[in-house]
């Protein structure tokens, strides 16, 4: 029987319009703006000043702490200014703006397309290389990879899971990567296994991508440590906890991390980035972004330099259609609409979805009739209607005991609600309040 996670889940329409579209390299933009905060954690600190000439792959911002990541120039050119620019967060963020003059790469980067299979570096060196190259998780949360690949003291890791699920509708960037860069990804997985010192890796792929399952299965035939597992299509299978449950039936405890059950989950795109960093010494300066939408003239998968403006990509994909209602950064379920198309692509941008006016409007909100649909779809066994009510009434402590911080913000509850209640909006708010309360609590404890 094909595996999946046992509770909850929804089936939003797939809409994978670009599943057959090869990865295209768009022309270089005329300028890029690279935000200093593209990852989870502390912003990076700029090491360039206005007027500096930079090469492609050159370090322009250093990690600001342990949970932070280096940032490299994705083009060669001149730093025109360091200013606050609106990015996909909706707020202005400190960014480095570089005017592109050409594409001159740093000479330490190996640009030979031939695949290098043998792994020379030791585990420690691999971690250092990930840190230097600014590798972060490319699935969406952008958690620094060097932190994730370092098993904390007292914890044990026996399995690496590669997330090739891509359960978000519309997005196909991981799908195309696995299909076109399969061998590199397999090498990347072996590198990560060496860093983690584990002897087993599993790749989870939903069975709406049979070509990928077949392709990677063929590549892994020789390698007994890596196995490919088809999964039944169900949203949100790409969430770490759901994927672990589906593949090996282990349950991550409330408030815990996958490492608590001996697992590390990495995205397939991250495996490719790790391969390039370790084998080719290439920092994370480009990623695959799906530009899609039913009204778009030519939706495609692009290999995009970090910092390219979304408006440039839309232009490359046939221009912004006239009746556009929303431009969504990310997928339609978890993504966030942007206020302007002039936001830069960052390390965590996996796709840009353009919705027509009639698709993008929210339905009118009705009263909750306690039908319980939100409870049945929640993959984490939470009660979304209750969490929303608690947040509205500012009952933050009660919300904490109801495990509000376990919510992975997949949006299934808001999607399924027949009264179109803004469940996830309130749960996100409640989550931030609970986290704030926890921070204050630790501050008080430290004082006392």
């Amino acid at each position, binding site marked *: 029987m094909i595996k999946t996670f046992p509770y909850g889940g929804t089936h939003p329409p797939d809409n994978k319009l670009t599943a057959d579209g090869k990865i295209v390299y768009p022309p270089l933009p005329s300028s890029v703006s690279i935000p200093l905060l593209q990852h989870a954690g502390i912003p990076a600190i700029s090491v360039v000043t206005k007027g500096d000439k930079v090469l492609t792959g050159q370090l322009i911002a250093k990690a600001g702490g342990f949970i932070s990541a280096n940032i490299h120039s994705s083009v060669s050119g001149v730093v025109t200014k360091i200013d606050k620019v609106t990015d996909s967060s*909706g*707020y*202005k963020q400190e960014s480095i703006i570089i005017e592109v003059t050409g594409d001159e790469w740093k000479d330490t980067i190996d640009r030979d397309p031939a695949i290098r299979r043998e792994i020379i570096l030791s585990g420690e060196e691999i971690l250092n290389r990930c840190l230097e190259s600014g590798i972060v998780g490319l699935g969406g949360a952008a958690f620094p990879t060097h932190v994730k690949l370092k098993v904390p003291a007292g914890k044990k890791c026996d399995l690496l899971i590669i997330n090739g699920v891509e359960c978000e509708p519309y997005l196909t960037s991981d799908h195309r990567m696995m299909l076109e860069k399969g061998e590199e990804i397999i090498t990347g997985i072996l590198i990560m296994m060496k860093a983690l010192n584990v002897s087993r890796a599993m790749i989870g792929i939903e069975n709406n991508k049979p070509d990928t399952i077949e392709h990677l299965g063929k590549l892994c035939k020789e390698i007994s440590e890596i196995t490919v597992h088809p999964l039944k299509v169900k949203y949100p299978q790409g969430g770490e906890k759901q994927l672990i449950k589906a593949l090996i039936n282990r349950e991550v405890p409330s408030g815990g991390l996958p490492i608590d059950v001996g697992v590390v989950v990495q995205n397939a795109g991250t495996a490719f980035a790790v391969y390039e960093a370790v084998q080719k010494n290439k920092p994370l300066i480009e990623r695959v972004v799906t530009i899609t939408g039913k009204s778009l003239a030519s939706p495609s998968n692009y290999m995009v330099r970090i910092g390219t403006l979304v408006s440039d990509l839309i232009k490359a994909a046939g221009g912004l259609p006239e009746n556009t209602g929303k431009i969504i950064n990310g997928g339609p379920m978890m993504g*966030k609409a942007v206020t302007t198309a002039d936001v830069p692509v960052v390390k965590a941008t996996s796709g840009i979805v353009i919705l027509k006016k009639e698709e993008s409007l*929210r339905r009118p909100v009705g009263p909750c009739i306690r039908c319980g649909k939100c409870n049945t779809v929640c993959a984490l066994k939470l009660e979304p209607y209750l969490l929303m009510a608690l947040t509205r009434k500012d009952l933050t402590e009660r919300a904490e005991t109801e495990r509000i911080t376990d919510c992975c913000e997949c949006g299934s509850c808001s999607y399924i609600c027949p009264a179109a209640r803004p469940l996830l909006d309130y749960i996100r*708010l409640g989550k931030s309040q609970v986290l704030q309360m926890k921070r204050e609590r630790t501050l008080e404890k430290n004082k006392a």
Partner: protein
Amino acid sequence: MSSTVLMTIISLTLLGLLSSVILYFIAQKFQVFEDPRIDEIQAILPAANCGGCGFAGCRNFAEALVKADTMDGLNCPVGGSGTMTAAARILGKEPVPADPMVAVLLCNGTPGNRPRTSKYDGASDCRITHNLYAGETDCAFGCVSHGDCVKVCSFDAMYMDNRTGLPVIIDEKCVACGLCVKACPRKIIELRKKAKKDRKLYVACANKDKGGPARRACKVACIACNKCLNVCEFGAIKIENNLAYIDALKCTFCRKCVSVCPTESILELNFPPPKAKAEVREATVNA
């Protein structure tokens, strides 16, 4: 038959007497003394339970008053000086006068001043919008216009002006309890000292961006040009985080800063119009 009734009456009476004696001694032993002045003070407090004094409710505030050595720092903003003097009389303490305060909104981002750059169709809640993005305009510091402050006001002292999209504070009703200050996720409501005839003079802007971006986002944004700082003779103005602030305790309402402000971000409210003033002066001269 009659003896049964008699026995019942006697035994129950005895039992009752015995219990009352036991209860009397227990009540003596475990008596909790409560100052009768707490009840007295609670009776004169407004019973709004708004939390403006910093305590959970009026009863807690009354307890704190009775316990405290001086009345310094204890003030019921709703009752004002009248209530506090009455409470001081009950307690036999010296009343400490506190300045009456009023809430003001540090934003003047009307649709005319602040062009809309996006449309928000999510839940109507200021905190959600604030967590989500800068708001419907480019100003990431100004009012997001969902009226969380109006929803929490228990004195009907606020309403949402649909024309400007900003909350309006009714000076006569505002008791400066501070509920709206706490509710605002952008922290743009301030409690200021109430002046004569409800006059107000303050910088109605909270934008901490530099001059250029602030001005592009809103016509009446403070651009921290320092003009008001230089013109003020009383040292009432300071500039921090690209934002001017007028200290209500030092300001003498000379209004020189208003005339030099290039973006009109300093608001003067409830002042008589200058023309009328000239007429009044003429009238007195003629008389």
